[in-house]
């Protein structure tokens, strides 16, 4: 039984990496426990609303940035409460920006968010695309067998 559990855990780590990597890259996936250690907050949340606008960052990039209001249903790490997330990409005046190592964010989507503080009290995804694990209707990370329960267990085991 113990061996089976270890196998499941290893597989979950691996699939989490592979699943997250669909939104990243090219690069190398950071295991869930390590992602959890680096994140200030980990929440299970649903995107309630999004707005997008052009912003100039510290590097001089002129990017469309989407601000997403998240309704938090569970705080796996850190405080609960609403979250304002900013992520590169989005649509302004008919022009859309996509970024290869970030997913898109749309209203109604549900995900596990690994968050770190950004500017002006808004959060950004920790490790960019690897910090947003979108969930399917069965509480699993899309395209993998990793469940929210397993993420919770892996994240809390490393607090």
């Amino acid at each position: 039984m113990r061996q089976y559990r270890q196998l499941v855990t290893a597989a979950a780590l691996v699939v989490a990496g592979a699943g997250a990597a669909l939104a990243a890259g090219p690069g190398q996936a950071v295991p869930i426990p390590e992602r959890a250690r680096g994140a200030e907050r980990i929440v299970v949340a649903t995107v309630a609303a999004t707005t997008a606008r052009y912003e100039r960052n510290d590097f001089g990039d002129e990017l469309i940035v989407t601000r997403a209001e998240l309704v938090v249903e569970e705080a796996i790490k850190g405080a609960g409460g609403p979250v304002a997330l900013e992520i590169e990409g989005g649509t302004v005046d008919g022009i859309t920006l996509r970024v290869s190592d970030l997913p898109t964010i749309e209203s109604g989507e549900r995900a596990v968010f690994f968050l770190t503080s950004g500017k002006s009290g808004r959060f950004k995804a920790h490790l960019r695309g690897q910090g947003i694990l979108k969930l399917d209707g069965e509480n699993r990370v899309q395209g993998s067998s990793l469940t929210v329960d397993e993420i919770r267990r892996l994240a809390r085991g490393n607090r």
Partner: protein
Amino acid sequence: MHTHQSIRTAVILLALAGGAAGLGAYNLTGKKWASPEAPYYVNPANADVSESAALAAIQAGAMTWSAQSNANFAFYYMGRTSGSSAAYNGKNEVFFRNEADGGTIARTYWWYNSRNELLDADIMFLDGGWRFFTGSSGCSDGVYLEDIAAHEFGHALGLSHSSDSSATMYSKATRCGTNFRTLAPDDLAGVEKLYPSPSSGSNSAPGVTIKLPGNNASYSEGSSVAFSGSASDSEDGNLSSTIVWTSSRDGKLGTGASFSRVLTAGTHTITAKVSDSGGLTASRQVSVTITTTPPPNQAPAVSISAPSDGTTVTQGTGITFRGSATDAEDGDLTSKLVWNSSVDGTIGAGGSFSRVLSPGSHRVRATVTDSNGVSSYSQIAVSVAAAEDPAPSPSQFWLSATAVKVKGRHHGDLRWGGSSSTKIDIYRDGVKVGTTANDGTHRDAINLRGGGSYTYKVCAAGTTTCSNAAVISF
């Protein structure tokens, strides 16, 4: 300084993710370029490899998609850019950024409109977190730029990540892997789905040839290079006037069958490309090298700051010599100065030293030779007067001498005393030059010009009873 990522479970991750291989798993972003060609610019400044090597690797990565597939699409290099930020500015730019972020090696930004037409794409390599290598060997704990470029240009043409672990568009790269530079069947299916090749049933591809410049031709910098070529198509006829010429270094050079152009120094890959009305293309390439001509070697410059020209000192006085030497190619050569006296030979080296010179008139020359063997010198005159002999006592046989010029010719005026001989022999530089009455004075006509010094003594005629020596200098 790079912050290299831990490899951790990458091998296992890749092995299990490979279970999805072979499923035809390419992902289209749903966006594509409206034109079958997209230009791009490169800022090759980076922390890891030479700019020329980076440029070549990026171009190779971009060319992967048109060279290995039958897709009706190609990126073409337009030249360098100083751009280092992503923006929707109508210019597709590729650049490096000293940033480490989430394990990502590179990322692509792409903008598109509501008709799903790609409008702009920028590629950023993160050399703060990863070390980039070029070529296909020598990589250690890093990645090959060509492979990562191939992946990112895949994004730029409209492909998303594939779940096929053998694909160039797979989301994870292996350290030092060279697999991305070769498109997998999954990549080919994706790009050819996105940009299908025009039907070839009723259209044949055009042909293009390059007459000039010849392959591997070499020209001197500043030379005008003649370009000449021809192109034809079985349906469209002569297409020579539509040949588009580009250089891997200078970007687009011109359009047409022939023209001339001055190229920048370095090795250029010259591409002549033509497209027919059915959308089929053909291209040919030659390599051309523009060599730089080094400027002619400049002679070094020498100056003497001390002592001043014409300085006169008394015998036994130490003289400080100072000088400097510079060279356009070699820089400061002061330490290589060599000092010579016309009287004493080599007297010192370097920028400063002190030395006592022999009595007489010296021409002191400071000489330096640069790395190309070209010498220069500066020269001054220094006179060293003989010290006055102590006043002889009346009972001694004494001599004093004074240098005198008569119409520019050397003479020595002698005075002596202390001898009871009726006749006196005169010796100059050890050679008897005359005998005179012992009247206490004599003018010796040397009759030479220029510089020189002479040593006199007088003796009782026919004896070895002699005075002291006296030196005169001109």
